[in-house]
Structures are given as C-alpha cells and as structure tokens.
C-alpha cells in the first residue's frame, strides 16, 4: 500500500512487516517517531511484539542481545549519542553472533549539542563488525530493514540500517508498504540452531583464551565476507518479489563515465540530478553509490573503478587525523590494483550543512579541472 510517510515511520513499518518480536529502544531526536510509532503499533496490536521501554541505549542493545539469544527477532533504533552509548553492546552483538537489526538516524556527534545529519556516528562503529546499510530514500529504508533481517539471520551478525537525519527521517514521501503475506514469503521466521534453552543448555560467551578466540574472530570475518554474496542475492530476490532491486552498490549512468563520483545516503540521491545536468553539459561522469559500507564492497568497487580516469569521493564524515572515511576505504580497496584512477577526497555537509546539486557539480567540476589531488582532504562548504 502506498503511503506518504517520513523516514522514521518507514523504519517502524519495516520492523512491523518483518514481524519483530522484541523491541527495546530509547528516544532521541531525530529518531523519536520510530519509537512513538512502534509504541502505537504495539498498543494497537498491529504488531505483536514485546516493547521494552529501557532506561538507556546501552540497556536497549543489551536487552536486544538477550532477546536475540533466546531466538526472538529483535529491533532497536537510535542516533548519534545513543549509538555511541551502545558502542560496547554493538561489539557484544557481533561477538555473540546476535542478528539484531538497528535503525540509526545519522546525526552529528556532540559536543556541541547538535541534531543535524552527518555520518560520524555510524561510521564510528565501522570497526565493530556490524553490517551497515546507507539508505537514500524512505522506500529503501523500509525495504532494507526486511533485507537486513534476512541477511543478518543467515550470517548471525547484527545490521544497522542508516538514514540521514531530517533529509529522510523527517521527510515524508511516497512509500510502498508491501503486503504482509509477500513479506512472510520472503523473510522466514528466525530459527537459529543454538539458543538459550533449558532443554539443551549451553553457555554463551565464556572466558576464551587466545586459542579459540582468534578462530572465533576469523569466523566473524568469514561470515561478514559471505554476507556480500547474500546481500546481493537477497537484494535481487527482493526485486523479483517486490519490484525493487538492491545490491552492495548502485550504479548510475556509470557505463561510459571517465570520471566517477562516489557518494552515499541522500547526497547520492541529490547527486543523480547533478550527474544528469553534467552529462547534459557533455561531461563523461557517472555516479557510484555505496549502499553497504560494512562489509565493504571492495570487489565491486575495484571492478567498477579500474581504468577510469578520475574518482571523486564525497564524505559527509571525517576521521580526524586521517580524512574522509569512504575515501580512505575506497583507496585501500583499490590500492593493489593496476590501472587505478587518482582519487579526490572531498568532505562536505558535516553537521547537516546542506549539500545541493550545485555543490556536487562544483565538486565534480573541480575534479575535472584539477590535475591531481593536492591534499588528503578537500574541504567543501566550510567557511574558512
């Protein structure tokens, strides 16, 4: 059914049609509508789930871990400070192999207090092992929740579905909420082999020495690598059932492009318009959207970027003391390839500074004009 809904509600409906069984969440701007709608859905019995109104995000994620360990499908949502407070427990979900799905509204980190978007909150979790999906529309938000459960539950790792504050979270647009029956067909019930069960008692997470621990970590990497295949497969299958296909990356007018612009989230959405206009001006540019940041789609990126002339990456984030994080990881992925293009790493839009079609065109044009990337970080839009 088509509805005009905000990104936050798309997230909630995504959880609803995934038939989540336990929700534990804590409010934070700009995520509050997620918990509010879920509270209502539970009160209305439109969603048959236990909602634990925990006293902090740390507890939210801990409760999700506990519930997941008994075999329940679990969901939480947060943003910025809340996500940061969950940090230890995101590691926990990963090490415990607990496929919790977490919605995160990208909001810049304090201090100073701020509520506008950038990716530093979620990217600060990039080393935990939690999958990260960056959505560019409300439709994708909803669809991705369902896919995230499907992927996560197969590899037993948590996923994060990420959307920009306000630009998606508070923006209403047309979203097709799929038929429950079809979703049930797509997403089987969660049925892990090992759960906390007095009938077959096991202990989870006991003290482990270097023997064992190293191997367990190896297996996490194995699983997350395997998820690349799964994400593409389930994304395709989703397309077959619902008419909207997804993958690790998305190509836009990329085929003949000499110059590739790489972006994510809503900037990638706006960038389509910029690419359209630039192509009209006769420029050989195309867009590569990185939809999934963890696992990092190194193979896809290598395949799509070798033999191009130039690459420009837009980062709405910064790892202080190194640079934009997408640029960094793309460089790393391409490093050992032959015939790789130089990469211009732009930072812009931090703390919610608006990124317009004009800004993006400027970035591409700068890249076209420039002979080589003069600096590790090319700042855009900051008032110097």
């Amino acid at each position: 059914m088509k509805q005009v809904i905000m990104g936050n509600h798309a997230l909630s409906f995504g959880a609803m049609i995934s038939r989540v069984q336990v929700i534990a969440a804590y409010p934070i701007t700009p995520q509050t509508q997620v918990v509010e709608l879920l509270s209502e859905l539970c009160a209305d019995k439109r969603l048959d789930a236990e909602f634990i109104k925990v006293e902090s995000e740390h507890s939210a994620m801990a409760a999700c871990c506990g519930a997941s360990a008994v075999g329940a499908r679990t969901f939480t949502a947060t943003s910025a400070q809340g996500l940061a407070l969950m940090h230890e427990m995101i590691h926990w979900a990963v090490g415990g192999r607990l496929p919790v799905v977490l919605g995160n509204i990208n909001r810049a980190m304090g201090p100073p207090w701020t509520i506008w978007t950038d990716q530093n909150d979620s990217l600060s979790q990039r080393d935990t092992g939690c999958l990260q999906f960056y959505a560019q529309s409300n439709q994708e938000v909803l669809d991705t929740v369902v896919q995230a459960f499907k992927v996560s539950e197969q590899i037993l790792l948590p996923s994060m579905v990420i959307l920009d504050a306000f630009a998606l979270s508070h923006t209403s647009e047309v979203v097709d909420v799929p038929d429950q029956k079809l979703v049930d067909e797509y997403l089987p019930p969660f049925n892990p082999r090992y759960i906390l069960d007095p009938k077959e008692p096991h202990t989870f997470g006991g003290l482990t020495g270097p023997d064992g621990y190293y191997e367990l970590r190896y297996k996490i990497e194995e699983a997350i690598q395997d998820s690349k295949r799964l994400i593409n497969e389930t994304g395709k299958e989703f397309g077959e059932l619902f008419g909207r296909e997804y993958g690790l990356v998305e190509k836009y007018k990329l085929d003949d492009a000499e110059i590739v612009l790489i972006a994510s989230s809503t900037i990638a959405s706006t960038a389509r318009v910029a690419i359209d206009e630039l192509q009209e001006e006769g420029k050989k540019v195309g867009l590569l959207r990185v939809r999934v940041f963890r696992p990092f789609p190194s193979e896809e990126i290598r395949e799509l970027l070798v033999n191009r002339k130039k690459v420009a990456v837009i980062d709405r984030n910064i790892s202080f003391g190194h640079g934009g994080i997408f640029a960094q990881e793309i460089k790393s992925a391409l490093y050992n390839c032959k015939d790789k293009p130089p990469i211009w790493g732009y930072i812009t839009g931090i703390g919610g500074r608006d990124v317009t079609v004009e800004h993006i065109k400027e970035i591409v044009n700068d890249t076209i004009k420039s002979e080589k990337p003069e600096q590790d970080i090319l700042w855009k839009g900051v008032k110097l």
Partner: protein
Amino acid sequence: MIEIRVHGRGGQGAVVASKALAIAVASEGRYVQSFPEFGVERRGAPVYAFTRIDDKEIYVRSKIYNPDHVVVLDPTLIEAIDVTEGLHKGGWILINTTKKPGDFQEFCKDFRVATVDAYNIAIKYKLGPKASPIVNTAILGAFSKISGVVSLDVLLKGIKEIVPIKPEENAQAATEAYNSVNFKEE
C-alpha cells in the same frame, strides 16, 4: 517540479499543511516530498515547512531555497521575517489575513499576492481553540484555487487522511477558503 514553502508559527500546523498537500498530490500518483524546517520548534516561534511536487521521482534532497510559492499562515510573520526570501519571480504569496492583496504593495511588484481570511473560517468551523484557531487546512483550500497545483477534490481527500480530529469540518473550511480567496484572476 514545484516547490512550496509554508510559513507559520510553532503550533499553527505548518507541517501538517505541507504534508496534507503532499498526501493529496501523491494520491494522484505524483511524487512528493514534505518536510519541516530541520530544527527545534517552539510554540509561537516562526517555523517553516516545505513541499516538493513533481511528475517523476524526486531525487534532490537538499533544502528548498527558491520556492515557487509561499504560504503564510500568520500575517504577523510578515513583519518578523522576510517571507519572500528566495521566492521565484511571479510566484504566489498566499497570506492568511483579513486584508486584501492590494494591501501588500511591497509584494505585488515581483509576485502574485492572494489573501484569505482563514482565521475566521477556522473559527467558524471550530478548528482549534478560539484564541489560536488552526488555519492550516483552510488556507490549503485557497492555495488549491489560486495555484492549481492540486484540485480541490483531491486536496479534500488528503486533508481527511491526515487530520486526526474534525476531518469533515476541516474539509468544509478548505472549501470555503477555496471559494473566498482574494486574488487577481489571470
């Protein structure tokens, strides 16, 4: 693509107006975005909301700097802020006021001005508390008329979908405003 900015005060329902318009338009299969100003809203303080409308999917996700039309829910805002900021030449400014378009000479040069007494229409249909009636649906009726962006019928469906209480009265208010808006027909 059509871009619309709605000015109001915290509590007057600018966001609901923007969203009701979007729902109405979407029901015709068109594409929409509706979003508030990204920030902290306080009752009484000036706020904005935006609507984007297009026949094809909308990818641009930056803010709206150059709206095609502006809707002003509260006439006192005109003194407080520049409601025409970025407004396209020839765009509509629709103002909730008892005054007539001609009373806004400063706007008439570059823009098309329309006025409607949404305040009293809202009071008439008992929308919101009498001290601060909710004028957002009424004014949308007027907007439908002048802009042609959406037909009244379709608008009324949108209003009924989003307004939680008194949907019928709201629809009536919109209709009355539709019929009573003051503007120069072209």
